């Protein structure tokens, strides 16, 4: 017998031993993996960003060289944001009560998902996300290697800011850089998010203003109304376990100081320690509001002047807690009540969920009401079914006026065996929902899938919803290649090109469909791409609208072995004429070298307009390129 054989045989030992080694004393490790994974799944889409910097790049220290900046003037005015814990919980009046209870009663995830992570995700509307590259008054700021570079439009590097930023924001004449640091080792470490602000009186020479540091993994960061909102989380691991060796560790800190107890909201009756800390950094200086939410937090959604936190656990249907821009509690959306079902979730003896199940995909504000989009399903055991269950599933569109308390509901049958929401485009008073549908799900040999649209309108607090007549093809993408970076069939964002006309990037592996949603009762597909290419290994990775008539597409030619690192990248510019039978005309192409391509892939590419001209900058390619078409 050879050592290789023994190594392989050890690979087949029992799951309980593998899991056991993982869980003992290692909660911190898997917690961190999970939280980092959760961070990775948050897509920041304002620029032409491709993926986030991998957390494993050992960017452990803030290498700015600047002394920690801390002034007391950022402290929150408790008169505007001191609402205490009890407002959102019937059981707890303070965080200490909750932590004391959980130190003895934390279920370590047993009543959450069996191995479940708490992947807090973010969705926003009317806000600005961070980018890898941004432009301001003829200057470009881009994330380089451990620094932020300042370039002019001729591509000259004018200087660098020595800070390993992950995201860049511009608001007025202020620049904000968001990064982080991690202390500790791979197994036990703590993460902090850092915001640094600069004055751009002279755009070529940013002047350092302030630095803030908040504990926790960064969930999201966005700009609205000249405020930078920083969302971080800590407390629960990927495998669903709390870190409860010392519950006192689970109080977020801001600039090293524990969070003000008055700026804590406990959401219902949490089963584990898990916080989401949010602070609003004024770009003119100081902090305007802070809040730490404790609960079984599933998702967070936000808009220009609100933030909504959705909770859910193994036994309880989701609820949505809504707060205003100062994080003042404005009300709760209890979806079980709106639909009229039991608040508890039932499971069979194998732990499979049966009965009523509500899921939340998105929360947004439509005029005066908050709309909650998601799914409602009802599962019953069915021995005749291939999966062992029969499902009734509906697209859920719920609305609540937080002032009057009035609610409305539409449950839309997507006319398929199963359905789930793929993508949503939010507008002022309506949402366009793209649904993934499955047909013949009981017959593996004849399963098929597709996509349908539901257009929902929220007018005067009332919901109306229409299911589009047409079904679009579900796509298969590049065969045998599933990693991020490959279009394996998901739909990309729906973007308005002209009034009520939208493009959808269908990734089949190539192609754009065009839809007309001007009449929600009669939505139309104007153009359907054939999605076929002469060679499958070519595909369009992602895209951006330049103007109403032009789009830019990052195009990838896969290497022969489908390895992304050896692939070739190019930027293609197309004009769009929705009235033509062949709406897309190829105008120009810029090809990246192989080395550059890897960096483009990892760090991003941005396009921007300045004085009527379009430019693109990759995060590593030298220079700034003017797009000619």
């Amino acid at each position, binding site marked *: *017998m*050879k*050592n*290789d*054989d*023994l*190594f*392989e*045989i*050890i*690979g*087949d*030992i*029992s*799951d309980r*031993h*593998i*899991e*056991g*080694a*993982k869980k003992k*004393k290692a909660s911190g*490790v*898997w917690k961190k*993996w*999970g939280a*980092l*994974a*959760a961070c*990775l*799944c948050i897509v920041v889409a304002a620029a032409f960003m491709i993926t986030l910097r*991998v957390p*494993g790049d050992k960017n452990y220290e803030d290498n700015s060289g600047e002394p920690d900046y801390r002034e007391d003037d950022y402290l929150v005015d408790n008169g505007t944001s001191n609402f205490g814990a009890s407002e959102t919980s019937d059981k707890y009046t303070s965080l200490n009560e909750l932590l004391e209870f959980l130190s003895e009663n934390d279920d370590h995830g047993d009543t959450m*998902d*069996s*191995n*479940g*992570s708490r*992947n807090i995700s973010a969705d926003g509307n009317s806000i600005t996300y961070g980018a890898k590259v941004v432009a301001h008054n003829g200057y470009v700021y881009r994330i380089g290697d451990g620094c932020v570079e300042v370039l002019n439009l001729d591509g000259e590097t004018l200087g660098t800011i020595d800070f390993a930023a992950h995201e860049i924001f511009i608001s007025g004449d202020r620049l904000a850089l968001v990064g982080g640091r991690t202390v500790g*080792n*791979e197994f036990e470490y703590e993460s902090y998010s850092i915001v640094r602000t600069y004055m751009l009186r002279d755009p070529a020479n940013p002047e350092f203003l302030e630095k803030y540091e908040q504990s926790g993994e960064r969930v999201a960061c966005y700009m609205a109304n000249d405020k930078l909102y920083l969302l971080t989380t800590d407390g629960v691991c*990927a*495998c669903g376990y709390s870190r409860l060796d010392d519950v006192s560790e689970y109080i977020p800190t801001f600039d090293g100081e524990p969070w003000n107890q008055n700026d804590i909201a406990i959401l219902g009756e949490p089963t584990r320690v898990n916080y989401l800390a949010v602070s609003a950094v004024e770009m003119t200086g100081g902090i305007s509001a802070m809040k730490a939410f404790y609960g079984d937090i599933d998702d967070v959604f936000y808009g220009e002047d609100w933030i909504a936190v959705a909770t859910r656990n193994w036994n309880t249907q989701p609820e949505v807690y809504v707060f205003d821009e100062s994080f003042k509690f404005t009300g709760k959306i209890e979806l079980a009540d709106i639909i009229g079902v039991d608040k508890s979730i039932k499971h069979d003896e194998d732990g499979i*969920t049966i009965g009523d199940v509500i899921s939340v995909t998105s929360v947004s504000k439509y005029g005066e009401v908050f709309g909650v989009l998601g799914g409602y399903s009802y599962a019953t055991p069915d021995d005749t079914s291939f*999966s062992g269950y029969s499902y009734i599933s509906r697209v859920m569109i719920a609305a609540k006026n937080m002032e009057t308390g009035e609610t409305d509901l539409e449950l839309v049958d997507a006319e398929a065996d*199963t359905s*789930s929401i793929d993508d949503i485009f939010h507008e002022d008073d309506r949402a366009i929902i793209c649904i*993934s549908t*499955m047909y013949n799900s009981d017959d*593996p040999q004849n*399963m098929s*899938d597709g996509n349908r649209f539901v257009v929902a309108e929220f007018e005067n607090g009332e919901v109306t919803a229409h299911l589009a007549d047409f079904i679009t093809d579900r796509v298969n*993408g590049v065969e045998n*290649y*599933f*990693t*991020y970076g490959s279009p394996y069939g*998901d739909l990309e964002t729906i973007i308005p090109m002209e009034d009520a006309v939208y493009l959808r990037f269908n990734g089949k592996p190539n192609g754009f469909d065009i839809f007309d949603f001007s009449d929600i009762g009669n939505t139309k597909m104007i153009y359907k791409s054939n999605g076929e290419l002469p060679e499958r290994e070519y595909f369009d990775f992602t895209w951006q609208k330049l103007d109403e008539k032009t789009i830019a597409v990052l195009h990838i030619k896969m290497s022969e072995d489908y*390895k992304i*690192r050896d692939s070739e990248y190019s930027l293609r510019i197309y004009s769009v004429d929705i009235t033509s039978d062949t709406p897309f005309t190829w105008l120009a192409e810029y090809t990246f070298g192989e080395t550059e391509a890897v960096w483009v892939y990892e760090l991003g590419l941005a396009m921007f307009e300045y004085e009527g001209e379009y430019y693109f900058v990759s995060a590593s390619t030298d220079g700034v390129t003017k797009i000619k078409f």
Partner: protein
Amino acid sequence: MEDKKIVELYWQRNETAITETSVKYGRYLTAISLNILGIFEDAEECVSDTYISAWNAMPPQRPNVLQTFLGKITRNISFNRYKQGRTAKRGGGEVSAVLHELEECVSDSKSVETELDRREMAKAIDDFLDSLSEKKRDIFVLRYWYSESVSKIAKRFNMKETAVSMTLSRLRAALRSFLLERGFEI
């Protein structure tokens, strides 16, 4: 998303399963692969291949514990990649040292010939692990399943590295005796 839902997505042939798997277990799987290969890009590709394998395996399979199901796939793929790379003298993380240590347990004679033999031996190793204290069992699994470095294990258990190495050495000797006593030709 809970594991049962993810498995259900695989069974529904819904490609969201891949995304959900990646979000939930991507880092975990990358860590396993990285321990074996030591090169991030290679680890990333092995994790991608894991998703393909999982897609091909479900249905018909419906794993009880998705995490370890995926982890085993990643470990196998990564080790196969390691063996290919070893010929080309490329890469190799902690696993080179792990294999070197495991040489103490084997005699480099004939290979294990049948799948049945392998399963029997895996079961015997399970029995061996059951006979150990919790701490020793975890140290063994972390080293020889997860291919974690001695220094990491030492930090994890607040032990000196030499103490971990000594524990592992004794465990290897004990495993060899355990298997020989039960008639396995190693």
